[in-house]
């Protein structure tokens, strides 16, 4: 699933390690989610949304809708 994590992270000048720390996941996991290789669970997706003060739909793109 595509997402805007890289852009959102860059806007805040955060590294992947910063993001991983904030989400309490490994850097490997933060990287895999950002690259769209791994889809996070709903709780983690909501956690990401809360971190950026956005909704899940603002961050993750439902490719089937496109």
């Amino acid at each position: 699933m595509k997402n805007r994590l890289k852009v959102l992270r860059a806007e805040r000048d955060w590294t992947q390690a910063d993001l991983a720390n904030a989400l309490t996941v490994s850097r490997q996991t933060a990287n895999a989610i950002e690259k769209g290789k791994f889809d996070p669970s709903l709780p983690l997706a909501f956690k990401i949304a809360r971190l950026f003060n956005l909704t899940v739909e603002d961050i993750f793109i439902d490719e089937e809708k496109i």
Partner: protein
Amino acid sequence: MSNIGNNDGGCDQHRNVDILPLALWTLGWLASTVLLRYGTEYIWDYLPIYSIIALILHLLFGAAMIVVNIKYLSQLDELQRKITMDAMGITLGVGLIAGIAYEQLEDIKLIAFEPSISHLIMIMAITYVVSILIGNRKYK
């Protein structure tokens, strides 16, 4: 960046998975296996009471290793857990398929020796390690 994550209960600690307890209990279990196998033969000369104690010790170490492994899995984040569980699933499948096929080899006279469980354990260990490596590479 200094303080991200404050809107989620201040969870800005990096995930810290402690593998040492699992490694130590696995070593303990291996040591108890060696004691059970070779202690019987070389230390207490098949005296049943010592063999029973060594067997109970071996089973207790095994049970502790399982509990510590479950705790270790709960410490992993969801991707790490997926990679580990996938590797465990593949290992179980390979172990079952290879184990049954290997056991048949002697019955159908394709090998002359009796199949040993240690060979199966080696196949399962190699399968697990390779599966973990492939999983990590896939999500790199």
